[in-house]
């Protein structure tokens, strides 16, 4: 409820490799396809 120095200290922090892959073009291209397929499944479920 307050500015949480303690919470921030205990929060998950992404590792260097996670940060790298977040913007690594070939991996993101793969994720782009996967996320779109997942969202398509969700949209089809939502439109039943």
């Amino acid at each position, binding site marked *: *409820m*307050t*500015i*949480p120095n303690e*919470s*921030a200290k205990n*929060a*998950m*922090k*992404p590792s260097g490799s996670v*940060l790298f*892959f*977040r*913007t690594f*073009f070939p*991996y*993101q*291209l793969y*994720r*782009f396809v996967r*996320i*779109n397929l*997942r*969202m398509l*499944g*969700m*949209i089809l*479920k*939502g*439109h*039943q």
Partner: protein
Amino acid sequence: MSRVVVLGAGISGHTAALVLRRKLPRDHEVVVVSPNRQWNWIPSNIWVGVGRMTKADVTFELKPVYDRKGIAFYQARAVALHPEGKAESSKPFVAIESTEPGQEGVKAEISYDFLINATGPKLNFAATPGLGPAANSLSVCTAEHAEQTAIVLAAAIERMRKGEALTFVVGTGHGVCTCEGAAFEYIFNLEFEIRRAGVRDKARIVMLTNEAELGDFGVDGLQLRRGGYVIGSKPFAESLFVERGVEWITGAHVQKVAPNLVSYETLDGETHSLAFDFAMLLPPFTGVGLKAFDAAGVDLSSELFAPNQFMKVDADYTAKPYEDWKAADWPSTYQCPKYANIFAVGIAFAPPHQISRPRKTRNGTLIAPAPPRTGMPSGVMGKTVALSIVDFITKGADSPLHRASMSHMGAACVASAGNSFVRGSAASMTMYPVVPDYDRFPELGRDLRFTTGEIGTAGHWIKRILHTLFIYKAKARLGWWLIPE
């Protein structure tokens, strides 16, 4: 010949109008009444608010689209419903007041056979003293607000370039706000732009939110499979805040926004204040204040509308404790219980209760994120109601209603965290269902196979593509109806 009147031309109302026009024979009339002459793709307003897009990029004129499709358009505000007509005629009608330049305030009556209330929210800045662009804080709720916010941000960046250290506060301006996702998007886009300008070391950035925990988003958070575990959205969201060096204050009800100073109460009942140089705080929503009258002129508003002025539909509005709330309480047809030819969709319908657990401070102040009902669910509702009305008109009044409960509906949400094709990112989230259903999914309320989240540049590409795709759809270009809501 039947006439269907749609009040509002946001995502749900505009979708309903286009579906009605496409499905109904031409001898039936579709009429849209909206106080705004432009359609706005609101999810991209956050990019206008950081100067990466302009108002022209996220809006277009409605009338040319409606003229092309054969939909009548009135630039006007709906003032009152008369579902039983008046003494001299039992034909239902809606009273409107023009907002067209040069015609402001001119009154008219439009009769209807079916009515869809898609009026959206009133941005209730007045709920918090000093809140809003007319007072001491900024907003990205409309394209105009977002443009104004971008100008102030650009000036703040200039001040930091000259060496000043500034404090930026972004979040919710009241304890019962909704759209925490928009605040989440804006704060990370703001952080991204400040970093891009090379002055990140001069900026203290603070999220001030009514969510009890980060990642709640007004939907009681999400559970996700990650690294062999099922984790809540709290650590997922917190990790982004820590990574970007953004501070957070949760469970906050903003009491007052003075020039450069925001006062707020937290769940422990304590009152705090925070000095700022730039504050973008979202307002709470209420209904637009539509009234309703019977043929004799007796006010029916309390029968048709909840106290927050949203319209009651086929939901279970019985007051009960949070633990007793059920997914089945949520509406599925959006039909008005008293008048079968009236429906309410999008933000205009009254939710039966919050999705996120409501809390009170020790002083009794309610801090309860309101349920989001925008974007994809809003479009699905508009289409569902339009199809019900089409069946009523073409197949008869005993046709079964189409259904789309938020407790059986999934949602895909892409929350931008920086606008750049190469270095940008967004959190891509899906959830099913939007309203947790503990009868079908006893452990977590949602289906983990369809409830996911990840951050990356791919999310930014998707959000940018959705921007183009949904504006194309809203302009009713060739094949628009093939693009799902």
